[in-house]
């Protein structure tokens, strides 16, 4: 920011370039935050980072090849004529441009060529130059070259030279060379890769012939091993890509004398050689940039390899780049670790091994040692080993933890605690008694006491007291097992309680165990356990058995009254079944036979259409909140009887409901709204047997006629009452007969009712039930009519119905044995007029039609409210109907079917008439 015109400021030194002055109104650009900075290559493409170890950019075209097209072959050129022009592909052809760029593996930047390098290493060329200089027209010009030529060498390099160092030599004191080399066998053909040229060959040539004693050599030129500790987080041995190092530096001569080496060798000498960087060299290892690639196949000698398996002479331990091994291995005893390799200078392998590391073997376990706590059941409550206890106590200081020891102890826990001066423990003892309620414990105690087992009973009571009033100790629990079992095992094992039924052997052991317990052989418990088991397992099993025995005991006596074992697993045996099932077919069958279609044959279910289906049908979802699709399901036991029985659940529920309703109406509405139902209910209350009730029902006819009008308000639910009332009566029967009523009853009901419709004979029968049931049926039909009777023809309907009821009373009585006749072959209600021979049958038709009509009218009322649109659609029919309505509005006009004009009417309307 030194752009100023002031003279004073001109004196100031300014660095860098001044920023462009901001334009007016221009906003200062915000610096791009780090996370939003992106890396692009030279062409603006985003660089993709990849590689777990390399951390570099992607190579080639999306990590594949150089171009989008892949390895595109160069254009086909006929080689017949242009044989000579064949392009010779170099390595560059297969390299990415990034590789050739400045930071690639083969940068193609401008470098000083050899001619202009200050110190050409080639002596021959040097000489040639000097000669040339001499011979040149202007002698001595080459001297100027040194002046002019740019210096490529570093100062250190120069200094070393001045000190007598020559290229190709190592740095350090001169050493004597040992003839420790294998002679290469000239006859043997040598395979394998050569060592990097310039490293090995020169040094090998020198030493081969003879080695005078007094001659010392310069140390070999090796890359020093980097012994710095690894501080970075790169992978082991990873170094960032440095072209010079990568291509020269790896050339470690593994076979130079390590003892003569020092770690102070100067690294990176190769760079100073001023070699041209190029992509040449050997395929293996280093040498990609080597010039002298002519001896790739020649320079490898067997001397570089071990031909014999032998202990390698101590030597160079500088093994590659990684940390030398011998440092570690030195610390190890020789016998343990055969050291292969060379030992660093200044060290030697120890002649005698150091004292072996003392290994403390794990303590040999005592014979009866068990790695877990377990409560030893066998306790000898003697105090003869009291001294031993004391001794142990003193030695371990925590003896009270050991249940087995402690149980033999004479003192109880409190005493011991007092002796030790410990505070009371707060932890809960794992005693089953802790989980029992006070009462149960009391009960247990009582039982124990009742068993009255000499001194043990005393102990038990004492300890159960303990357990109640103070936290019990483990040993108490162990004791308790024993004690509890003592008193209770009298019946254990005798029954079919098999806690280990899955494992028969175990079960057997358990049974033996229980048997022995019963006989009081406490000490021999263990002999029933599997001798193959470990101590620990035996301990476990023993405890298991104890627990099982106790569990059985307690569940047998005290707990079984409260709990019952689960018979089924929770969810496995449950199945989803539809909540509502279609009702019993038998009843329907009968109903169909009687042509009692309608309520009896119909099942209504809640059904949830799929939301999408509603959408497709342009219908509002009837259950917008429910996720159920189809029939609602409930979970039931898989093998529940109810899944196989088609239980008429809805009906029964309705029945109950209506029963209740009836009761209600009896109790509440009777005074206000006397109806025939009241009468029947009264009778129901009075009479117990159905026969009586039915016999009385005959006299109801008069009663029914009297209160027809109030009944209209009573039954708002309309037809839904039909079935209920019918079934309500049956329900009564059910109660009385405590079971399903015989089929005859149903038949009686249905038969008589249909008789009523189709009856043609006037004979009477002596049987009581038939007429009365038919009577009841007529009631129900009337009941259908009654709720509709808001219009004027209610009266007529009712009266007509009652008339028919009365008239059919005698007529239906005769139809007792006619049940067999009723089948699908019966002449239908709507047969042709010719077939209708009997007049009363016609009357029946009329009645049915009336019934239909009233229903239709009700429906029509509903429709008038709801479906105006529909009426519009049916306008044509309406018009026709209106004409007819004049004549057919009253039931009387429909008496004659023959003169009906049915054309152009919808079936409903036709049927209405």
């Amino acid at each position, binding site marked *: 920011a030194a752009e100023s015109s002031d003279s004073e400021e001109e004196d100031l030194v300014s660095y860098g370039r001044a920023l462009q002055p901001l334009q007016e109104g221009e906003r200062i650009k915000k610096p791009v935050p780090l996370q939003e900075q992106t890396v692009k290559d030279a062409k603006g493409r985003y660089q993709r980072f990849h590689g777990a170890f390399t951390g570099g950019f992607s190579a080639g075209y999306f990590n594949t090849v150089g171009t989008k097209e892949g390895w595109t072959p160069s254009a086909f050129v006929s080689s017949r004529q242009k044989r000579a022009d064949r392009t010779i592909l170099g390595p560059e052809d297969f390299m990415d441009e990034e590789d050739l760029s400045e930071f690639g593996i083969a940068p193609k930047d401008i470098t000083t060529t050899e001619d202009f390098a200050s110190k050409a290493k080639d002596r021959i060329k040097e000489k040639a130059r000097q000669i040339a200089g001499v011979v040149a027209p202007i002698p001595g010009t080459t001297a100027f070259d040194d002046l002019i030529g740019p210096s490529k060498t570093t100062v250190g390099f120069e200094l070393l030279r001045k000190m007598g160092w020559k290229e190709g030599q190592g740095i350090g004191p001169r050493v004597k060379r040992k003839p420790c080399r294998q002679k290469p066998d000239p006859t043997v053909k040598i395979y394998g890769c050569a060592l990097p040229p310039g490293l090995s060959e020169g040094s090998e040539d020198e030493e081969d012939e003879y080695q005078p004693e007094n001659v010392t050599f310069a140390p070999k030129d090796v890359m020093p091993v980097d012994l710095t500790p690894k501080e970075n987080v790169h992978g082991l041995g990873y170094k960032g890509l440095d072209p010079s190092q990568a291509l020269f530096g790896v050339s470690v001569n593994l076979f130079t004398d390590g003892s003569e080496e020092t770690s102070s060798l100067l690294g990176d000498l190769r760079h100073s050689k001023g070699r041209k960087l190029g992509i040449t060299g050997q395929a293996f290892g280093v040498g990609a940039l080597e010039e002298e690639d002519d001896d790739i196949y020649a320079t490898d000698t067997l001397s570089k390899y071990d031909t014999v398996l032998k202990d390698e002479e101590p030597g160079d331990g500088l093994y590659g780049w990684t940390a030398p091994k011998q440092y570690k291995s030195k610390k190890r005893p020789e016998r343990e670790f055969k050291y292969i390799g060379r030992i660093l200078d200044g060290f030697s392998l120890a002649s005698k091994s150091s004292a072996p590391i003392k290994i403390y073997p794990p303590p040999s376990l005592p014979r009866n040692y068990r790695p877990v706590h377990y409560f030893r059941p066998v306790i000898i409550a003697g105090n003869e080993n009291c001294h031993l206890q004391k001794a142990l106590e003193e030695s371990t200081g925590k003896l009270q933890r050991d249940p087995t020891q402690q149980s033999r102890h004479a003192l109880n826990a409190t005493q011991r605690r007092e002796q030790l001066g410990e505070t009371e423990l707060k932890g809960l003892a794992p005693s089953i008694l802790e989980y029992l309620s006070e009462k149960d414990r009391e009960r247990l105690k009582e039982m124990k006491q009742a068993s009255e087992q000499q001194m043990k009973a005393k102990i038990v009571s004492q300890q159960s007291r303990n357990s109640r009033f103070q936290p019990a100790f483990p040993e108490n629990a162990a004791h308790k097992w024993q004690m509890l079992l003592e008193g209770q095992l009298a019946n254990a094992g005798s029954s079919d309680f098999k806690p280990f039924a899955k494992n028969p052997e175990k079960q057997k052991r358990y049974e033996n165990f229980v048997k022995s317990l019963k006989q009081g052989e406490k000490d021999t418990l263990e002999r029933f356990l599997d001798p193959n088991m470990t101590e620990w397992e035996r301990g476990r099993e023993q405890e298991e058995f104890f627990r099982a025995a106790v569990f059985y005991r307690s569940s047998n006596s005290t707990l079984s009254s409260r709990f019952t074992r689960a018979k089924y697993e929770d969810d496995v045996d449950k199945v989803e079944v539809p909540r509502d099932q279609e009702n019993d077919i038998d009843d329907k069958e009968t109903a169909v036979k009687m*042509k009692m279609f309608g309520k009896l044959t*119909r099942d209504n279910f*809640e059904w949830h259409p*799929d939301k999408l289906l509603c959408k497709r049908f342009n219908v509002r*979802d*009837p259950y917008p909140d429910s996720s159920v699709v189809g029939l609602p399901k409930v979970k039931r036991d898989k093998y529940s009887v109810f899944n196989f029985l088609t239980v008429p659940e809805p009906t029964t529920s309705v029945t109950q409901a209506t029963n209740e309703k009836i009761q209600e109406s009896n109790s509440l509405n009777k005074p206000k709204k006397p109806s025939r139902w009241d009468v029947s209910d009264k009778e129901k209350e009075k009479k117990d047997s159905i026969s009586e009730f039915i016999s009385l029902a005959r006299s109801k006819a008069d009663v029914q006629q009297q209160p027809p009008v109030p009944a209209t308000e009573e039954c708002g639910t309309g037809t839904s009452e039909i079935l209920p009332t019918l079934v309500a009566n049956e329900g009564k029967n059910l109660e009385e007969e405590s079971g399903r009523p015989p089929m005859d009853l149903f038949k009686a009901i249905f038969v008589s009712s249909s008789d009523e419709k189709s009856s043609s004979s006037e004979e009477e029968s002596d049987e009581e039930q038939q007429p009365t049931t038919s009577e009841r049926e007529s009631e129900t039909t009337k009941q259908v009519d009654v709720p509709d009777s808001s219009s004027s023809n209610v009266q007529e309907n009712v009266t007509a119905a009652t008339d028919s009821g009365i008239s059919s009373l005698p007529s239906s009585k005769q139809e007792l044995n006619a049940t067999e006749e009723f089948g699908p072959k019966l002449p239908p209600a709507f047969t042709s007029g010719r077939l209708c021979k009997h007049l009363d049958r016609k009357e029946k038709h009329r009645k049915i039609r009336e019934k239909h009509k009233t229903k239709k009218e009700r429906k029509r009322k509903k429709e008038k409210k709801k479906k105006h649109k529909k009426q519009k659609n049916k306008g044509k029919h309406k018009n026709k109907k209106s004409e007819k309505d004049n004549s057919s509005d009253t039931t009387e006009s429909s008496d004659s079917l023959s003169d009906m004009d049915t054309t152009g009417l919808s079936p409903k309307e036709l049927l209405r008439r």
Partner: protein
Amino acid sequence: MAFPRPRPARPELPRQRVQTLQCGQGAVRAARFNADGNYCLTCGSDKTLKLWNPHKGTALRTYQGHGYEVLDAAGSSDNSQICSGGADKSVALWDVTTGQVVRKYRGHAGKVNCVQFNEEGTVIVSGSIDSTVRCWDCRSRRPDPIQVLDEAKDGISSVKLSAHEILTGSVDGRVRRYDLRTGQLCSDYIGSPITSVCFTKDGQCVLAASLDSTLRLLDKDTGELLGEYTGHCSTTYRLDCVLNEQDTHVGCASEDGHVYFWDLVEGSLALSLPVGQGVVQSLAFHPRLPCLLAATQGQVTLWREDTFQPD
């Protein structure tokens, strides 16, 4: 008081054979009118489906793509698509003009007995002998049905749709009506295996034909029996029942080669039409005209009223 209108003409029944289509596709399993009754579809046992103009007696197109005999077909209301179901357990949706299968719905475990479009042609409802009714979506590409109605205990023999109802007749002897609007399923027990169901034109009644050689007219709302029609013979086959265009008569195919018509109200036999020697396999009644399609054996006959004068 309005002046009484003149009485409409007494409904005519098709009594006169007008056309006979020799379908040439094996047994004709079903013959169906399209929505307006100008065309018809015949389903053949030779896996083909044919589109006809039955009034002229011309075959228009053959649709091939079913893997087994075609048992039922239906045209959409806009006449652009055809759905068909066959014994290859699949339901196919055809494009009428190209004759290609647009979609094939697989999912039934058995023969597809009956197919129906809903009013908009967006859903195909198919009933199969696997006792399920499946509702397939024509709008989306989903391969599974929108909903499966698996309440039936036996095969579905017939399916009919109204604007908001699905009516199914099943061999388990029940007529089920799924009401989408109220979310209810009404199941009416008939007893005998149902062979065919249909709505009356006013949508208030349901006609059900069953294997006890009886047709029953049931009140849709209450399930009560309004009429019963017998006289024909239907004990073995899945035969169609129809209502005429004015709902005055009920028709049913019979195994004795006749088609019977009854007066809907009286229940009296109005007409016995001798169609052929064999079983009349399928019936279709024209939506507006007294015109009947009856399929028997390998041919389809078109019947018109007596007064009809063919051009």
